[in-house]
């Protein structure tokens, strides 16, 4: 497991993501957050692990953790097809722009998210949005639960195989299932 940016040129300078070495650490951080938000990108239907799509793992995770999901691109339709209704949907750029605005009151109008979790956007897009947040919302905590290291996040899993990714997502889901959600 490597903490180099997955796409080699997506390097950061002085502020780099802390690696999440175990899924339990991610779970602990999500549980500590009062208003987490999970942003799911278009790779949710492009990535397959153990014969299942990423989106299926994420629905299980969202159901267990009760973390609200914001779908980008056309993923809302994919969630709906699978019987899961995301809390919101908008373009990736729209949500990025809102998060850097400290006065934005979140997708429910009740408060700015204190932890934003990214997964499944095209790597370079996700890297750029995380860079935007690192620079222009420096107090915003960000995390990715991709299997690819994102240097601009606050916390990121290291680069990992699809098998390890599936395992991590299942562990995270089970930890919430066992403890009654976020």
């Amino acid at each position, binding site marked *: 497991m490597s903490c180099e940016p*997955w*796409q*080699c*040129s997506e390097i*950061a*300078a*002085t*502020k780099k993501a802390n690696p999440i070495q175990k899924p339990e650490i991610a779970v602990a951080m999500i549980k500590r957050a009062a208003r987490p938000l999970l942003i799911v*990108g*278009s790779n949710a239907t492009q990535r397959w692990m153990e014969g299942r799509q990423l989106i299926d793992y994420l629905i299980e995770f969202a159901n267990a953790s009760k973390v609200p999901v914001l779908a*980008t*691109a*056309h993923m*809302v*339709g994919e969630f*709906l*097809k699978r019987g899961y209704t995301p809390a919101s*949907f908008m*373009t*990736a*750029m*729209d949500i*990025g*722009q*809102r998060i*850097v*605005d400290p006065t*934005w009151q979140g997708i429910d109008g009740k408060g700015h998210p204190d932890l934003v979790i990214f997964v499944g*956007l*095209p*790597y*370079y*897009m996700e890297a*750029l*949005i995380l*860079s*935007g947040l*690192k*620079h*222009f919302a*420096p107090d915003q905590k960000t995390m990715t639960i991709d299997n690819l290291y994102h240097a601009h996040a606050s916390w990121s899993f290291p680069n990992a195989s699809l098998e390890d990714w599936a395992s991590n997502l299942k562990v995270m889901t089970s930890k919430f299932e066992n403890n009654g959600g976020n």
Partner: protein
Amino acid sequence: MTSKNVHVKIDEMKTGSGLIKNLELSIGKVINDNWTEPMGPTPMPHISTLRDWDMKLLNKYKPFYMPDCDLCCLCTYGKCDLTAGKRGACGLNIADQSSRIVLIACCIGAATHNAHARHVVDHLIEKYGRRFPLDVGGLNVKVEAPVTRLITGVKPETLGDLDDILAYTESQITHCLSAAHTGQEANNLDFESKAFHAGRMDQVGMEIADLAQISTLGFPKAEPEAPLIQMGIGTVDPKKPVIMCIGHNVIPSVGIIDYMKDKKVDDKMEVVGLCCTAIDNTRYFDRAKIVGPISWELRFIRGGFADVVVLDEQCVRTDASLEAERVKAPVIAASEKNCIGYKDRTNDPADQIVADLVSGKVPGVLILDPEKVGEVAVRVAQQVAPMRKKMKSLPELDQIKELAKKCRHCNMCQRNCPQDLSIEPAVKAASEGDYSKLAALYEECIGCGRCEEACPVKLEIHSYILKVGEKKMLEEKNFCRSGRGAVSDVEIRSVGGPIVLGEIPGIVALVGCANYPHGGKDVYDIAREFASRRYIVVTSGCSAMSAGSYKNEEGKTLYEEFPGGFEAGGVLNVGSCVSNPHIAGAAIKVANIFAKRNLRGNYEEIADYIHNRVGAVGLAWGAYSQKAASIASGFWSLGVPVLVGPHGSKYRRMLMGRSDKPENWEVYDARSGDKVNVGPAPEHLFQTVETPQEAMVQIAKLCLRPNDTWKGRMGKLTHYIDLHKRHYGIMPPDIHMFVRTTADIPITMKDEITEILKAKDWKESIIPDPTMLPRMIRKVKE
């Protein structure tokens, strides 16, 4: 034009008192000003003249920065770490730096198009004279240069007039770029305003380049039925000598085609092209062929199809000459901007150059005389072709199998692939004799070659992909319509009303480069979707090629399936990169010809009109270049929204509205001076979309304009809702923001939408005569 000058040049004159030689006298220039329209407020704007207008847009559509680099390394104070609000040694912060990078990109793009225009205009003046009249469509196009007229206040009539206007744009681009020097501009929005100005200069430069070449070279003149051109490597006769022209500047190709015609060998040879040179070649010679977009240079050079490669300027791979050497194809560099280290042979006898290239004594030459390029290219191709036998650098399948066994499975290929393609498993499968995974990569690979550069054992992965995709490559036989040039005044008169009233739901311009996230079919799908919905679909450049590279169920390409007019359901290719101002020009001409707004030096009013009334959207699905940035910038400053595909996020700055902030969406009603909330229409000025499905939904939404009549809004909402439901599976959540009166509601969805409006506590509003300019209010309230 305020400066009027006279320039007299006497090479030699005998007088009673002696011989005069090389006398040049400048006392200003004479501009033949027959244009009676009164001058508007901002002719030949300087870098801050339109700042107020720019700021109106930039406050409505605020920049969202996504720095691609945390550092600034542009001066010796640095590197400076600008992370999270730190200021560098010069005092700049990351927002300023990000906008500065945008400005630099736009200046590079604008300089490139203007330098292109400068070369074309100088060359054509030398050939045809300064007084050669401009003609881009005869009596059908009286407003021949809408962008130039609007921005400069000058109505150009001759090639010489274009020369004078270029002097203005060149000075402005210099001013814009100078603002990026350390210790100059200090505010991100002012950097952005200057980027807009660079975009304006870019539009003028491009328009001048195309005006000059259309007028002199016999290109189609606003012709909806411009010829259908054969496209794809499968259309090229491999038995004939093949000259492959790559780049953007048609002048060297004109030399080639003229020589071929002069020697009566134009039917015995193939002249083919990549990128905009290809399109402009076909505008000059309809038997020229297009092989594909610029990003597939490696594909077509390595494929060994070319007997001679002619490189001109812009977007040419800088290793194209090395790749040509691999397949023993002689190279002619034909632009002083791209000399490639070759010896300048411009003044050498053609016989000698031909002999050196044919014998392989030199791999390439620099020739800056287009006529000599023509002679040398043709003669070399004729002599080399029988010897080369289409040499390829592609390995055979059994070689690939053996070479693939060297793979260390380090995954550096994928980690360096911009598409994040799953390369390593494909190489592994190939090592076991299964080539299907490599074949699957053919369509999505954009041919950058980074996988090969990253490979520690130097596997030529791109060549493997090409080899297994070779059959498909050779079967590529499609049609692209040759660039038609301007939209005629007659067409504008026919559709101006329906566009402004919203009855034609929008103009969708598919422009720009080929850095696609999943191949070019997305461009075709999007174009076909909107043409079928009777939007006006305009294409240019590499997107025009991709749009024509696929066929419908009847075997027809897009250009065969839909008419080529600027009309509802039309699909028209305006031409190459420098033809893009015909798209901006069409919007400008709607304001001028249909709405009778004065054009001359009247930028703010026309941009305000377009922004609030003309439902046009640009989509650069594969934009990659600095030129694409400056082209987009020219559209932003006109208030026209631009979408880019996912790779476009690397432009690092979006210009986005906030639909959740109602206060951002107020305009003046020019009839009363009242402020009216018109909703987020259009919602964004520059935005990255992630998938083609999202692009379609966003395009439909971004065509909404405050001025839409109820009938027009109903139609536009029908498309927006339909696409939203199809791709997202749900009614748009923001529909209440776009319904102004109950008459706007699509009839077939009345009950459903009425329920939504009730739930949102919706209130009816008026349809204003919208403007963002207080001076346009006809009656000021007491």
